[in-house]
């Protein structure tokens, strides 16, 4: 959303390198979500709407506390509720705040064909620039977390900005500010990773939650949003968090080798027909029956 005052690391659909990349170094920012202390109050959902200027829309009831099935173009922050059956048969309610993960290796940016429609700042925030967005939806195919959403009225894509306008002014994101239990933290990636690992260790050693761990998937180069989960081996239980997310290989191939193969093939085709013309020339009609004079004229007449 905001151009802010941040240095850009990566630009989507851009012919050439990102100008100014690497002239400025920033802390990698990171949001830490501790699902073990989330109470599902949805204060973060409301804070997100308020800060970003969206009004509360109708909820979609589907026999759970969840506000709606998925995030939408104007609802970027959604707590996913899942009634989970433990191994001993008891029931627990898993709650996970779902939003853009701000991947270090963003699939949306890789897939985007529009120059500057998606940028990654040096602090790690992945941000959509709607003035450059063409509304093609390629980012939907690129994202392993199903986050970018289409606004049919403006034909532009929207998602969580990690409150880039606040962060660039030294403030924490709106959701962090609203959290009453302190399950949300914001800081440098280094600090948040340390905090998350410490909490996971505490859960394992002091609370007997043996599978507690940190979700920071390496498949997308790590994320700017990390989770502490009770069971790090089963992230799918938290409202479909993918176990090993990757930028799809089809998208990688499409935006990498396929482009070169395709461009060379097209160039080869043009070169081929040109060479053919220079070597063999046009097909002439044999002048075997010149008595039909106009025949010859008709051959090249427009």
């Amino acid at each position, binding site marked *: 959303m905001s151009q802010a005052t941040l240095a850009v690391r990566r630009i989507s659909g851009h012919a050439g390198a990102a100008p100014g990349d690497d002239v400025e170094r920033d802390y990698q920012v990171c949001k830490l979500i501790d699902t073990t202390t989330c109470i599902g109050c949805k204060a973060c959902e409301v804070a997100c709407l308020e800060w970003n200027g969206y009004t509360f829309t109708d909820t979609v009831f589907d026999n759970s506390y969840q506000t709606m099935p998925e995030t939408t173009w104007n609802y970027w922050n959604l707590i996913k509720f899942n009634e989970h059956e433990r191994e001993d048969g008891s029931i627990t309610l898993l709650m996970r705040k779902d939003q853009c993960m701000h991947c270090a290796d963003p699939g949306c940016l890789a897939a985007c064909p529009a120059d500057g429609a998606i940028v990654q700042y040096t602090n790690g925030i992945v941000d959509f620039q709607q003035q450059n967005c063409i509304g093609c939806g390629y980012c939907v195919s690129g994202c392993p977390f199903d986050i970018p959403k289409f606004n049919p009225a403006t034909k532009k894509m929207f998602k969580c900005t990690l409150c880039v306008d606040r962060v660039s002014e030294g403030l924490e994101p709106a959701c962090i500010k609203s959290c009453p239990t302190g399950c949300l933290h914001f800081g440098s990636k280094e600090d948040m990773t340390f905090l998350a690992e410490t909490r996971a260790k505490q859960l394992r050693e002091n609370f007997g939650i043996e599978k507690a761990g940190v979700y920071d998937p390496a498949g997308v180069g790590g994320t700017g949003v990390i989770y502490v989960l009770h069971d790090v081996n089963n992230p799918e239980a938290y409202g*479909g968090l993918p176990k090993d997310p990757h930028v799809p290989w089809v*998208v990688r191939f499409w935006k990498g080798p396929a482009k070169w193969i395709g461009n060379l093939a*097209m160039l080869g085709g043009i070169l081929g027909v040109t060479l053919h013309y220079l070597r063999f020339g*046009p097909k002439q009609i044999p002048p075997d029956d010149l008595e039909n004079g*106009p*025949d010859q004229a008709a*051959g090249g007449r427009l």
Partner: protein
Amino acid sequence: MTASRVISPREPGGTIHRQGIITRYTLSERVNHWFGALTYVYCLMTGLAFWSPYMFWLAALVGGGPTARSWHPWFGLAFTASMVVMYIHWDRDMQITAADLRWKDAIQHYIRNEDEQLPPEGRFNYGQKLFFWLMLFGIILLLISGIGLWFVESIPGSLRWLRYLAVAIHVATALATIGAFIIHVYMGTAMVRGGFTSIIRGEVSANWAKTHHRLWYEQITKGTTSEK
């Protein structure tokens, strides 16, 4: 000369006129061909813009990225419609025949412009038929995969492989049609003299028909004694 002659819109293909002029393409065939050409070229330009950042400037020629993205699928539908009409026009003439297979075996002579060594062909030669069927099956695949890309959010995340499949099919098919398109334009404008005028004015000379499509020429002149 024949330049001032006006072709009747209802004139069927193969009509022979005085002075050895033959109607090769009817008015509706020509109008539809150029409607298809226009819509295909639009999709080609905008598609290439989405394909590579180095060709994104092509979108600027037709009103910018968002405009190009809005119209690309609609022009694709229009091109599909023209292909349907083309199928109605030419389905019968585009069936692969025994003569085509003989011609195919001698295709190196066609490439080297040794046309006198080629077996005779009907209204369309094997290469033209190949192009027609490639574009027809191509547009079917482009249409199906294109609808997937158009309404990508309607494909649920649990079926995300369909999104990837749509991308892969759309790209591969588009590239195949571009290859065929390059050859088609080259042959129609530069290589086969008289071909370009035939798809504009609809006329070829009897000599042209005899040289390139002898079986067709013999078929339409059968029973008539006025010509040649």
